[in-house]
């Protein structure tokens, strides 16, 4: 089987030893190289080094560190779409990836990623193997991610996963969003009714720099907040309220409106094809310019929440 035979192939490798990870990865990559597929290795620096050494030292593909390419799920998906398009255009028959998404760093975001990627990369000639260390990742997390993978590799055996759940079903079961503890603290900016987007930007911009986050993250957060408030003003119910919390290394904002909101946790994730400015582009910008975007409903109304920095 190769990465070009019928779109996205999405495996989970549950390994119990380093040698298990290394041997499985090396064989997978050798088969890919033989089939003229491009290769991407995206595990921890130590794992990358061990796999490359076992491969023979001259690894014929891209090597990225897990944390680098797996910060924002929507960004990661688009990066893969672009990479595959580019490699196929240059003659590759497909793309093979072995990667650690680092799920424990931000379980909500990466659980969603593991589900949505089945749809977003569906037509692309890519074979991805997501690696999970059974000694390190919590059991309930392992059980959840298993549901997002159509194939499972364990103890040297690769099998179709009978318990695989389609993205919508998976998210209903596993994507739970609730208030964060910080939301119970007094916000640093509170706008009881957002009437002017420029006034909101003007109120929030000066204090966001106090987070100490890089300028680019701060600017991206403001763009994301603007689009969230725009979405609420256009599609939600008035009044639209905004709250922002600034902590060292962390920015959090909520935009509440009196409307019914939108259902589904997939809003704003990339589609299978990159079409400029398709409907929903505002939420797509939100997903890509902040670290996490969630929605939930409380007595106060529909809440859209964004966070950058500070972990989940």
């Amino acid at each position, binding site marked *: 089987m190769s990465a070009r035979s019928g779109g996205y192939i999405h495996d989970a490798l549950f390994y119990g030893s380093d040698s298990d990870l290394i041997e499985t990865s090396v064989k997978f990559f050798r088969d890919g190289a033989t089939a003229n597929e491009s290769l991407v290795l995206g595990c921890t620096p130590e794992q990358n080094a061990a796999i490359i050494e076992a491969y023979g030292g001259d690894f014929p593909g891209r090597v990225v560190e897990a944390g680098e390419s797996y910060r924002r799920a929507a960004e990661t998906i688009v990066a893969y779409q672009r990479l595959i398009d580019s490699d196929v255009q240059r003659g590759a028959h497909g793309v093979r990836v072995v990667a650690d998404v680092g799920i424990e760093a931000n379980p909500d975001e990466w659980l969603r990623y593991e589900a949505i990627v089945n749809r977003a990369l569906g037509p692309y000639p890519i074979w991805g193997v997501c690696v999970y260390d059974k000694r390190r990742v919590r059991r309930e997390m392992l059980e959840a991610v298993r549901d997002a993978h159509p194939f499972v590799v364990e103890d040297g055996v690769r099998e179709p996963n009978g318990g695989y759940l389609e993205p919508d079903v998976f998210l209903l079961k596993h994507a739970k969003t609730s208030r964060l503890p910080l939301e119970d603290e007094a916000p640093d900016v509170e706008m009881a009714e957002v009437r002017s987007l*420029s006034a909101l930007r003007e109120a929030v911009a000066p204090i966001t720099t106090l987070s100490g986050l890089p300028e*680019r993250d701060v600017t991206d957060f403001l763009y994301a907040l603007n689009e969230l408030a*725009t979405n609420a003003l256009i599609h939600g119910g008035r009044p639209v309220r905004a709250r922002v919390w600034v902590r060292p290394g962390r920015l959090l904002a909520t935009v509440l409106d009196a409307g019914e909101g939108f259902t589904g946790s997939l809003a704003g994730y990339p589609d299978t094809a990159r079409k*400029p400015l398709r409907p929903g*582009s505002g939420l*797509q910008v939100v997903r890509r*310019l902040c670290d996490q975007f969630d929605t939930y409903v409380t007595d106060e109304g529909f809440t859209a929440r964004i966070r950058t920095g500070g972990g989940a």
Partner: protein
Amino acid sequence: VSVEHKQSSRPSAHWEGHLILLSRTDADSEVAVTSWVRAGLDARARIVYAEDAGRADGHAVVDILTRNGVDALAALVPSALERLPVAEFWAPGAIEAMCDEALSEGFASVRVLAVAADGVSELGEQGYLDAERGVDDLRTGRPLHALCRYAPGDIPDPVVAAGIAIHPGGVRETLFRTSRTDDALLISGEIDAHNDPLFGYFIEAVMDTAGGLVRLDFGDVTFIGVGGVRSIVRGSADFRSKGGTVELVHPSPDIVRLLRVLSVDELKGIEIRDGDS
């Protein structure tokens, strides 16, 4: 590609030329009218405004100037500020006569101020728009500046769009401005959901009259949201489909990032010139 900024550094230059004022609120409009009149007085201009007598709603020009302390300034120079009834102001040949008279009396230039809704009531939509185009003709060879106050909501959208098409290099919205330089249209300020429909009219107007290349200088744009980007893409779609190119020059790094997130950099006929390319 290297495109130099060519905007004048004089703040009063923001208030010269044939301008369309698209203020969102009465307060914004008041600030703009006050600044425009003050700039005219500084430039030794005679200012003539179209307004019928007896306006008592607080929006009379004289009330605006009194509230902002500019009436005293105007009183220093006799006949520097004059009111004409709307019908007289828009009568054929009136503006031309105003210019000749003011210049013969020693004024350095003439500034005319009119409310679009009043003009539309007097002349009808088409008649008013024709009169506005006539102002452009009169400006050839004359030191004539004009501020046309449009209040979106008070007049139909097609008239607002046509008005913007008459002044593509002179839009003064609450948050964004446009100016024309030798080789580009310079955009300044912020574009978000509150003003992107007006920005869209501006983009469509520019594309309607463009040759093969339109250069939009984003050097002074401090913010643009997704709606503003959509206005550029949709408003230029026909122009680009016929082989035209839109160059976005001098966008800030955060605007470049937004354009790339939206895959605008992959669209045929749009080129982003951010200094690195």
